[in-house]
């Protein structure tokens, strides 16, 4: 909830008095039942390069477009449409003293964003200021320098800062999303920014590549690949490009998920000696495997609780696929007690995803085994809430702040990725430009 404008001066004063204290004091309380949006005007950015580059127009468009995307996605702002040219952008100043805030207030803008940018060969510098028009003060001013080939990225960094300034919480604007697409002919792994832009392929082995997931530090991914024949689990270091096999037992090795501390990997193995596929833990330091399930059913798709003490997964030991939770702490004492079934309705419940804040488990459920929808429930299985109802919706994955869910949906025909708020609102289709995108995995916060 926004504080009423007469309260704002108090908050500004606190910001300026103490930077360290500022983090704890927020303009917008996201835990409030409803968030009243801020009216923001965005002034056209000004190119201040010594020599105007041929890319100036494209860069300006990308900067404004990315800012627009981030502001809308944040859920904190309503953009004042008539705000672009209250001042002549070529003459307007970034200094609060030189801004006539009254003109901006007249068009309804509580807040204002202005920016300048400068291109030097392949480097782009962007400076953005965020002002409170009511108190006629600057709230945030940041300058970023990066590759001119990706202006959007600099805006995302700014958006993270702005979001944290206003809410006291980390923003997800610099996070990324992994997904699978068969657009190259075979299923390969792709990575895009959180908004679906700048998607690029990161596997090129032309076998089948599935189930990408992030390491907790965001530096590595694990994925399942047929590139050596049988499905094995590999890791790819995103910084070095180093690709290494993680699990290549005889039979199937599928769906690895890092534990929250990054030391273990939960996965499904189909060893010949087992009656069927079972869940295993691999200790990444010792290379030791330990078996988590032992039954005649299929056990797949593990999802760790954020404290690392429990694993939600899919099993058909009840007859059809349902979601169970295994208490790793209690396992040695009593196997039956350690295992708890969470879903009891529908024909097919799959893809559990524990929210990073631990409060909910999202999953894809189906009444008829054909059409799936995204649901959330509490970790005890209560409070099941359906979030989608249109098309075939699968494989939910949480944003690291637990505010959003990315999933795949066929609602517009071809399978695409969509983001929604954790209550099902604010649905946005990601324009990756790739097509037939499946099994998304949202990154943790990235450095």
């Amino acid at each position, binding site marked *: 909830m926004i504080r009423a404008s007469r309260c704002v001066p108090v908050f500004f004063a606190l910001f300026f008095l103490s930077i360290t204290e500022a983090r704890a004091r927020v303009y917008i309380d996201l835990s409030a039942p409803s968030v009243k949006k801020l009216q923001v005007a965005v002034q056209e950015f000004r190119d201040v390069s010594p020599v105007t580059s041929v890319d100036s127009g494209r860069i300006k468009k990308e900067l404004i477009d990315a800012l627009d995307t981030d502001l809308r996605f944040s859920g904190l702002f309503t953009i004042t449409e008539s705000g672009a040219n209250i001042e002549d952008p070529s003459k307007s100043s970034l200094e609060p003293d030189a801004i006539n805030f009254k003109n901006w207030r007249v068009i309804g803008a509580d807040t204002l964003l202005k920016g300048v940018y400068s291109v030097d060969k392949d480097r782009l510098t962007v400076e953005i200021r965020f002002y409170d028009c009511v108190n006629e003060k600057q709230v945030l001013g940041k300058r970023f320098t990066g590759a001119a080939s990706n202006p959007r990225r600099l805006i995302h960094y700014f958006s993270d800062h702005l979001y944290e300034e206003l809410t006291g919480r980390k923003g997800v604007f610099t996070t990324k999303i992994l997904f699978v697409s068969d657009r190259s*002919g075979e299923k390969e792994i792709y990575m895009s920014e959180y908004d679906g832009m700048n998607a690029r392929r990161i596997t090129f082995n032309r076998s089948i590549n599935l189930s990408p997931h992030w390491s907790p530090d965001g530096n590595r991914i694990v994925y399942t690949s047929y590139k050596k024949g049988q499905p094995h689990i590999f890791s790819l270091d995103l910084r070095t490009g180093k690709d290494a096999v993680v699990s290549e037992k005889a039979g199937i090795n599928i769906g690895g998920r890092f534990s929250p501390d990054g030391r273990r990997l939960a996965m499904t193995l189909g060893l010949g000696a087992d009656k069927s*596929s079972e869940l295993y833990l691999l200790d990444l330091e010792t290379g030791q495997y330990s078996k988590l399930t032992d039954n005649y059913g299929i056990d797949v798709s593990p999802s760790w609780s954020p404290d690392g003490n429990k694993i939600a997964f899919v099993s058909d030991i009840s007859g*059809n696929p349902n979601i169970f939770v295994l208490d790793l702490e209690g396992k040695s004492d009593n196997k039956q007690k350690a295992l708890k079934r969470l879903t009891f309705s529908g024909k097919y419940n799959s893809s559990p995803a524990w929210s990073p804040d631990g409060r909910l488990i999202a999953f894809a459920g189906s009444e008829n085994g054909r059409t799936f929808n995204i649901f959330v429930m509490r970790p005890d299985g209560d409070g099941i809430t359906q979030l989608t109802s249109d098309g075939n919706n699968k494989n939910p994955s949480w944003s690291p702040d637990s505010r959003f869910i990315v999933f795949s949906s066929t609602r517009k025909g071809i399978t695409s990725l969509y983001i929604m708020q954790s209550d099902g609102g604010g649905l946005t289709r990601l324009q990756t430009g790739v097509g037939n995108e499946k099994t998304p995995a949202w990154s943790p916060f990235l450095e």
Partner: protein
Amino acid sequence: MKRNDIFRFLPIIITSIGLTAGCGAHLSKVEMGDKAVDVGADKSGGKNIVAVPDEKVVTEDVKTSGMGAKGSAAAKDYKSLGANDELTKTARESGTLYTIHFDYDKFNIREDDKPLLTKNAQWLNINPAVKVRIEGYADERGESEYNLALGDKRARSVERYLEDMGIIKDRLATISYGEERPVDPGHNEDAWAKNRRAEFKIAN
């Protein structure tokens, strides 16, 4: 690519074209290390296919299309189950035995498929040098990891059935493709019924 390189690789290319002709393997993309290089739009009239530096990759293309063309000379010598034996013909021509099918979310062998499996086992009995790979598949419904495990169960269920009929385990291998590589790309009951299957691929 230098001219002498072209000659160096020429035998490989000729071999691969011979093997891939008409079997659906595509050479529009060739592989160099871990990067795909698209030569589909190459203006040299396809001559740059020569740029394949790695014989192994081309061989794999043929292998993954599952064609009998790669079979050894012994393939011609398969023993037949008798006159009008379709199975031997299939084995010679496509390197496969009878495919069987499964009910939704099930991995048990259906009664109507047991005669086919019995034929496969009899044929393997009279051709003791042949090894097979049993490939388990699922239809597209449901979740890909679950389907992978389901395909594994189907393949292993067939493997056990053949073992019970006296085929030694050393001659049998299994792999699951889950919902990948459907035989029918449709999104309806007919397509799904075809895709829930176990295929037999002659592996030597």
